[in-house]
């Protein structure tokens, strides 16, 4: 039982160190690429497992007649049709066109519509922000967003207002860029320490007790 927990940890740590060594020492370069290629292949298989999980969850919803089960029926039918089209498209160019058309006519417009919904969602969220978190940072956030918007969009009858455009450029290049760099430095440091915790075996996303 103990071996069951130790074995994946040893494998993960060993391969983690080998990949790290591949980055730094040219001697391990080929081996590092080989491991990464294996990881990419495994990720491909993981998609199959993930899609099976999606099927199981939604067929369960249909079986138990849960709320929104009709959407699960649509999802499963669409998934199977797309999967079959994808398989046949490999051998027939006409079906390949149909497969691409299905993506361009259904998936793309739906995702674009969601993007449009997002505009309304964010506008509403910005108004709510002032009600729920009324502090200096929220005011700065909203004023900056407003100035960037008015500096980007052309004004009716006036067109481009040079002062507003210059202000937008200044905000984007000086304070926003400085803040973004600070945040990205923090994210970089967090990424480094998270990687080290996994290399030490303290974080084990593959099971086992955390340290």
């Amino acid at each position, binding site marked *: 039982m103990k071996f069951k927990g130790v074995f994946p940890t040893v494998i993960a740590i060993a391969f983690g160190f080998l990949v790290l060594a591949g*980055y*730094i020492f040219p001697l391990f370069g080929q081996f590092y690429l080989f491991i*990464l290629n294996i*990881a*990419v292949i*495994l*990720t491909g298989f*993981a*998609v*199959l*497992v*993930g899609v099976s*999980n*999606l099927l*199981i*969850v939604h067929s*369960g919803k249909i079986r138990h007649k*849960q709320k*929104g089960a009709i*959407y699960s029926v649509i999802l499963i039918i669409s998934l199977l049709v797309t999967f079959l089209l994808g398989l046949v498209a490999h051998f027939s160019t006409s079906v390949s066109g149909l497969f691409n058309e299905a993506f361009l006519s259904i*998936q793309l417009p739906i*995702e674009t519509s*969601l*993007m449009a*919904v*997002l505009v309304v*969602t*964010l506008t*509403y*969220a*910005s108004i*709510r*922000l002032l009600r*729920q978190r009324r502090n200096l940072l929220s005011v700065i*956030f909203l004023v900056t967003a407003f100035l960037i918007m008015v500096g980007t969009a052309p004004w009716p009858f006036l067109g481009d207002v040079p002062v507003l455009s210059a202000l937008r450029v200044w905000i984007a290049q000086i304070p926003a860029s400085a803040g973004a760099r600070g*945040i*990205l*430095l*923090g*994210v970089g*440091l*967090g*990424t*480094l*320490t*998270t*990687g*080290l*915790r*996994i*290399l*030490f075996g*303290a*974080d084990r*996303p*593959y*099971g*086992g007790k*955390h*340290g």
Partner: protein
Amino acid sequence: MTNATLLELLGFVIILFSAALMAGLAALRRKSPPAFREIPAFSRLRQAIGRVVENGTRLHVSLGRGALVTAQSASAMSGLTLLRRLAELTSAGDQPPVATSGDAALAILSQDTLQTASQASAQGVYDPTAGRLTGLTPFSYAAGAIPVIRDENISTNVLMGNFGVEAALLAEAAERDNTFTLAASDNLTAQAVLYASAQEPLIGEELYAAGAYLDAGPTHTASLTVQDVLRWLIIIAILAGALLQLVQLLLSAGAQ
């Protein structure tokens, strides 16, 4: 020695230094835990977890879509650590947590994390459908996760990982259901939209501090201290660089 080789060597030295510091601090932290600044979002998360257990409701952790073979995997790993800790904290509740992801490998890891957490709990109940892949594109992932927030008796949502603008749709769905939402991402755009739309947004490196603030172990507290030490070193390097640049300017002006 070329500049590229010099940078690689510098990177190696920083990694070695950070690893040694983290190992040393983790050993020390076992005896005396450090005190960190208060982050209200984590205190409220603890209260929300308490309500999940008391009310018999469910916790939802959304792990984003950070693929494991990319640089964004670190935020996903942080999300998994938090999922593990939260699953342990809610193990006394009636319903196990549910985790949604937009990456297949991440969904498999979330299932494994939930299974390990359930084995450690007294009830030992594991539901294989609790770790779910909800979609493979950003918006299909959000569209698949929204019904989970809305229909599965969720009272607390944690969005932690790599998201894009679609995170606003998740935060909005949580807000409409009047549920608690803590949200963090390594992506700058997502951080901006989450700042506006989530109840408790985390900014920048606060995403990686979740483990330390939820007592996930001494290595987590040590890694937070290592981040602080490295940040101070970067600040010193930036100030020294600016000072040297100024000195060079003054010297060249003096020579003219």
